[in-house]
């Protein structure tokens, strides 16, 4: 099957997520989609798979224009997506998952024998001999992925879209997956990955997306990793970052030989007035590091943390906040805000005790503080009584930041502080970070955006597979160097 997009544009409000993207998958081809975080890869996949049905431009299947109005629609046309987060029911068996929603029946009852027989055949095609009666929760990620692929084949998919399929796989599982993918016939693959080595190992054709546009499309053998990285990055860094001249103070936070979960031997330190950038791929363990330091994730196997000169090894969120170590976590909707409550409610949630005597809140003092916070983070409009759920992403992020500042942190841990935030609010958040540092706060900044790392951080640590994969000073940090460090697989 031939699948093509012609001059595809997709807007969210005033912002373009895709602009004039053209892209063609030939029958039987392995087509890699490359680009930085936020380049538009996920949006493109969502259009191709029918999740977004509102867009400009054309989608062609075997040269006939098509507009999918839902996932089922796309599936019927032969397009299946395997997402990074697998969509399997853990309690059901492999066979039941493969046939979920399309169970074969006999006299109105599920024909279990036929289901299991056909599942075995499908999996055998993929070179796997998993017992199809095993519940999926007992299978490894690699095997679960094969089940998803088998499910797609069962639905007669002719274009298979794989979104970061190797993010959670071990080296051996990756090799096995590649063998399966290479052996598949009659199916076109769209392969999305950050890992350029994999792209070159697999792809016939490569399309690069950048800032929502398709920059170029060419045969894989005509290019190399270095050139590809240049195309992926290749944009002048906008001058939205404040210039900073800061005298560094004492060491505010020091982490030594930290081992927890997948994180091993983490060493880092950050001084008062400094921004320490932490980069790396999604899944490299950056968020886990911040959560652990804050006291909200993992049991430590070893290592020490020193906070403002004193050992700080038994952390809980409440204790961390009391000692001036505050986290702004990455998922503000799920884990940051009480969405149905007001802006004011959220602003002072962490610092409520300051305004209370014997547990009773002094409403006037609290409100004064809320007003100050709203000015400090430039909330617009500065309406304290509005439900947070009604705010834009930028304003929501400002509320989370305001709440963090309300508890007077000395070390601020920021996890993706500008995700889903528009350009204007971004610049304001950058300025705020600079201002806080000038006042002597130490900041640890985790971000997937390389320009942000380079523009804001005084020093940058790149994490790879739970380890510190390289440290860069501001002068050494170029996007090419950082990306190369992030993509280096620890082996």
């Amino acid at each position, binding site marked *: 099957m031939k699948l093509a997009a012609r001059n595809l544009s997709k807007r969210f409000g005033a912002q373009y997520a895709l602009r004039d993207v053209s892209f063609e998958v030939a029958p039987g081809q392995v087509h890699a989609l490359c680009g930085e975080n936020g380049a538009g890869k996920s949006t493109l996949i969502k259009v191709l798979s029918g999740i977004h049905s509102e867009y400009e431009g054309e989608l062609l299947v075997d040269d006939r224009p098509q507009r999918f109005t839902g996932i089922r629609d796309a599936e019927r046309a032969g397009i299946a997506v395997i997402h990074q987060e697998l969509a399997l029911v853990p309690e059901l068996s492999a066979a039941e998952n493969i046939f979920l929603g399309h169970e074969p029946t006999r006299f109105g009852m599920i024909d279990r024998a036929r289901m299991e027989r056909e599942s075995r055949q499908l999996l055998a095609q993929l070179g796997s001999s998993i017992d199809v009666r095993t519940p999926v929760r007992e299978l490894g990620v690699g095997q679960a992925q094969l089940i998803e692929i088998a499910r797609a084949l069962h639905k007669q998919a002719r274009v298979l879209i794989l979104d970061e399929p190797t993010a959670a796989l071990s080296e051996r599982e990756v090799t096995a997956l590649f063998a399966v993918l290479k052996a598949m016939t009659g199916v076109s693959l769209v392969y999305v990955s950050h890992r350029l080595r994999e792209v070159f190992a697999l792809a016939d054709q490569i399309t690069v997306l950048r800032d929502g546009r398709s920059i170029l499309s060419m045969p894989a053998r005509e290019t190399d990793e270095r050139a590809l990285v240049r195309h992926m990055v290749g944009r002048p860094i906008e001058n939205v970052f404040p210039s900073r001249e800061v005298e560094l103070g004492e060491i505010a936070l020091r982490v030594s030989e930290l081992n927890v979960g997948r994180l091993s031997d983490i060493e880092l330190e950050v001084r008062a007035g400094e921004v320490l950038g932490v980069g790396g791929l999604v899944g490299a363990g950056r968020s886990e590091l911040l959560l652990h330091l804050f006291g909200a994730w993992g049991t430590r196997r070893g290592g020490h943390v020193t906070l403002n000169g004193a050992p700080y090894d038994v952390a809980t969120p409440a204790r*961390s906040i009391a000692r001036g170590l505050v986290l702004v976590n990455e998922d503000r909707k*799920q884990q940051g805000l009480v969405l*149905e*409550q007001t802006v004011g409610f959220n602003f002072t949630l962490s610092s409520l005790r300051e305004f209370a005597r014997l*547990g009773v809140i002094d409403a006037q003092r609290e409100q004064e503080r809320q007003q100050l916070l709203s000015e400090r983070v430039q909330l617009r409009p500065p309406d304290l009584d509005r439900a947070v759920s009604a705010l834009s992403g930028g304003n929501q992020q400002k509320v989370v930041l305001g709440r963090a500042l309300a508890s007077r942190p000395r070390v601020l841990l920021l996890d993706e502080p500008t995700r889903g935030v528009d350009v204007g609010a971004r610049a304001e958040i950058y300025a705020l970070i600079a201002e806080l540092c000038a006042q002597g706060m130490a900041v640890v900044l985790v971000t997937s955006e390389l320009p942000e790392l380079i523009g804001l951080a005084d020093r940058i640590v790149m994490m790879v597979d739970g380890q510190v994969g390289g440290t860069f000073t501001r002068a050494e940090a170029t996007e090419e160097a950082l990306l190369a460090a992030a993509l280096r697989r620890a082996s």
Partner: protein
Amino acid sequence: MLGALLAVGAFFASYGALSGRELGFLTARNLSLLSTELASSGVLALGMLLVILPGHVDLSAGSAVGLIGALAAMLAIDPSALASHFGLTLIAGPWPAPLAMLVAALVGMLLYAGMGWCVAYQRMPAFIVTLGGLLAFKGLHWQAIANATVPVVRGGHSNTLSALTTFYVPMSYAWIAAGLGFALFAYLSFEKSELWLLKTVVAGQLLALALVVCGRYRGVPLAAVILLAVSAVVFVLCEKTTLGRYLYAIGGNEQAARLAGIEVQRITVTAFVLMGAIAGLSGFLQTSYAGSTTTTIGQLMELDAVAACVIGGASLKGGRGSALGVLFGALIMAVLLNGMTLMAVSPEHKLIARGVILALAVWIDLRLGGAR
């Protein structure tokens, strides 16, 4: 809440039209009895709110009402018998009622602390934990009274426990106390606006009207005063204290609350312990109103309490609800029961009507909420 009003209004209008009988609802005597009846269920519903706000539920409330009330009555009448029912030996005369109530309430708080610990620290669903409580407390209740009927006080006498629902505050005291209380309320809530003036004047008139009505019977029922006091405490707790704020935050988004530095587990246990104390108070009122403790005291009261919360606008998912709304919800449930009793509706029809009204009120609320 609006939905509840409409549903109840429609119910009474249709019933009144059908029966054509005089309701006898708005007599001073009936209103006075109603307020006493409302006290124990209203207090319990207010406690239930504290458990529902952080996203839990207490199905054991009715059984706890029976158990704690029975413990107080047994201790006030015959502590030796109570001990012997549990296979212990204790030689003691009747305890003073206040002491009996205090000890019974402490036992209730301890039991609730245990359930709170299971929910908060062992992460067991409150539905299951309190379902276990429902059964176990009922068993303990029956064991405590050996399946008999035990009066709250020896015949012809009265004690603090019996006085809870039989004592009426004389009107002269009531007027003075109400005047002082109203002045305090007006002072605390003062803001410079016409709306405030209007609200205060209306509230004052309602209060005066209530007092006048009470004056035409025997005075202000002590039970009504207790309900008012508990309402005020729960209102302040929810609206003005850190604890209340944390309950809303935990119910709204537990993960966010934890990461905002709220000690979710400790707060959850606190909510359960408060519920234990309130279930005790409700138990004293209910047992006192019945005049004796029997195996049926408290039966199904947990469901009326949950219904009052939901009708009053609280969300069973947590994070939403208010003390005033719940008080209103409890009032609706009590008025409904009282009205049906006056109209001589049979018990089976009463149950059906309660169920239909609950579903209807929530359905209307959802509709209106969806349109907003």
